[in-house]
C-alpha cells in the first residue's frame, strides 16, 4: 500500500530553494556554484554549457503530447545529458494563462512527466531528473497573445 507518508511540520530546507528558480531568475544561479579552485571553475563552465544545450520544449494548447520539434530537442537534450552525467535537471511543467489555474497545475505536471519519460527512455537515469508543475503561475512571457502563450506552454529545464 502506498500509505507511507512524509508528514513534516512546516520547514524551509535550504537545498530546496534552488529548484524553485524559474526561467526568469536562473541567470543569477551561476554565482551559487562559483568558488575558488579549478574544479569548481570547470563545474561552473559545465553548468553554463548545460544551460545552453539543454533547452526547453514547447506544447500545443491543452496538450501534454510531444510535438516533432519537442522530440528532436529532447533527443539533443538526452544526448548531452548522457555525455555529462554529473548534471541533473529539474523539469518544470508550465502552462499558458488560458483555462483554469487548478487544471493547469495538473496539465503542467503531465508536460513535465511526459518530458521526463522521454529522456528516461533515451537513457538518462531517472534519478537525475526531477519534475515539478507551476501550472500557469510562472509565465515566461506575461503577454496575452498566442505568441506569448506559445512560449509559456513549456517544459523548462533547470540544470544543476
Amino acid at each position, binding site marked *: 500500500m*502506498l*500509505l507511507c*507518508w*512524509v*508528514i*513534516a*511540520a*512546516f*520547514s*524551509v*530546507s535550504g537545498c*530546496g*530553494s*534552488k*529548484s*524553485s*528558480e524559474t526561467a526568469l531568475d536562473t541567470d543569477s544561479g551561476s554565482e551559487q556554484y562559483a568558488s575558488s579552485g579549478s574544479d569548481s571553475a570547470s563545474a561552473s563552465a559545465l553548468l553554463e554549457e548545460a544551460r545552453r544545450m539543454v533547452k526547453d520544449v514547447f506544447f500545443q494548447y*491543452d496538450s501534454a503530447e510531444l510535438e516533432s520539434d519537442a522530440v528532436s530537442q529532447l533527443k539533443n537534450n538526452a544526448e548531452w545529458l548522457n555525455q555529462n552525467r554529473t548534471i541533473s535537471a529539474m523539469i518544470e511543467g508550465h502552462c499558458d494563462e*488560458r*483555462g*483554469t*489555474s*487548478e*487544471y493547469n*497545475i*495538473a*496539465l503542467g*505536471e*503531465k508536460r513535465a512527466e511526459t518530458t521526463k519519460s522521454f529522456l528516461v527512455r533515451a537513457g538518462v537515469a531517472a534519478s537525475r531528473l526531477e519534475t*515539478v*508543475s*507551476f501550472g500557469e*503561475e510562472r509565465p515566461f512571457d506575461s503577454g496575452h497573445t498566442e505568441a506569448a502563450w506559445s512560449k509559456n506552454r513549456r517544459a523548462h529545464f533547470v540544470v544543476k
Partner: protein
Amino acid sequence: MKSPLMPFSKIVFILLCCFALMPSTLFGESVKEYVKITKAGADRIPLVLRSVDVEGSKDAQYAKGIDKVIKNGLAFTGLFAILNSPMNLISGGELYQTGKRQINFPALSSVGAEVYAGGVLKRKGKTLHMDMEVYDALTGKLLMRKLYEGNREDTRSLGHRFCDDLVRLFTGKPSIFGSKIAYVSRRNGKKEIYLADYDGYGEVPVTSTGGLALTPALSSDGRQLAYLTYTRGRPDLQIKDLSRKTVVSVTRKGVKIDPAWRNGSMELATTFSFDGNQEIYLVRKSGSIVRRLTRDRGIDLSPSFSPDGRYMSFVSSRHGSPQVFIMDLNSGTTKRLTFDGKYNTQPAWSPVNDKIAFTTMQKNGEIDIFIVNADGTGLKQLTYRARQNEAPSWSPDGTMIVFSSSRGGASKLYVMNADGRNQRSLKLAGEQMQPCWSSFR
C-alpha cells in the same frame, strides 16, 4: 413549519405580551409569502429602515455607525429594497421607547413598504443597548422585537446580529453575517492567502510563504484551512488550524491540487500524483489518507461535496477534455454532469441544495459561470461577456456566489446572487483570486 422566530438563543430578547398571544402561524404565513416573492426573483422585500433613535446627542455618532452597518449589511444580501423613510413615521407615544411609540402604518403603506424596522439606541458606559422592532407594514403586526447589547467599539458586530435575525425572519435560515471568505491575494508578484469578512471587510493575511500559496479551502466549522504552497519550490498541501495556529504539511511526491472539505466530517479531498497519475484522495486533517476515490487514466481534480457529504462533484479529463462528473461515495458510481463545451471545470456544490456552480471556457477564451442541478437539469448561465469569471464559491446559506472576475482588467473578487443578479465587486485593494466562502462561525 418551524417558526422562524425560534433560534434566538444567544442574546437576551423581549417579547411583547400582544406578540406572545398571537398565533405563530400568522407570522409563518407572511414569511412564506415573502420567501415566495424573493425566490421568484421578481421582487425584493420593500423595507423602510428607520435610523435608530438616540435620546442623548453624545450617542449620535454610535447611531450613525450602526445605521451604516445595518443598511450596508441588508443591502448586501440582495433580499431587500430599502425605501426612504416617510417623514411622519412615528406619530406619537414615547419616541425613545420601542413598543410605546406609535408607528404610522398608513404612511408606510403610502411609500410602498411591506416591512418596517427601526429601534432605539442607548449607551450605558462602554455598552450599547439597541432595542429593535420589526413590523409588517401592511397589517401593523409586530414580527420581532429584540434587545441587542454590545461593545460600543464594535458597532459592526452589533449591527450584524440584527441583520442576521432579520434575514432569518424572512428566509428561515442563518444568514451570511459572521461568515468569512478566504482567498488568494497577489501583491508584488507573490500570492498569499488572506481572510476577510463576507463583504471584504477587515482582511488579514493567513500565509507568509514569500512566494506562492493557492486554493484555500475552509472547513465547515471555519477552524481549518487547507491550501497549497510552493515553500520549498515544490507544491505541498498544508492544513492549518486557524485557532491553534498549527500547520500540517503533506510533502508527498508530486502535485497536490485544490483541496475541499467534505461536509459533515473533518476530512478533505484533494488530488495527489504520487502514484504516477493525478487522482483524488480522501485525507484526514492529520494529513493521512483515508482512501483513494478516483481510478482512471485522466486528470482528476477539484472535488466539491454535496451538503450531506455523500456525493462528490469533480473534474476529470478521462474522456479527453476536462468535464464535471459526480461520484456517489457510497457505491463508487460515477456519472458525467456536463456535456456542453470542451472545458468545464471548478465545480462548487451548494451547501444547502443540489445546485452545482462551475465554469465553462467559451470558444472566444472567455470563462463564464454556470449553475446546473446535480441531475443535469436546469443549466443556467450567470455571467456574460465579462472576460474571465472563475472559481465560484457559495455563501453558507446558498443565496450568493463569490467568484473572481477580470472584467475590470485585474482579477478581483465579486459577489452575485445565486441567480446571477446583483454582480458587484468586493472592492478589495490589489488582485485576488480563488475565493472560498466559509460556513458559519
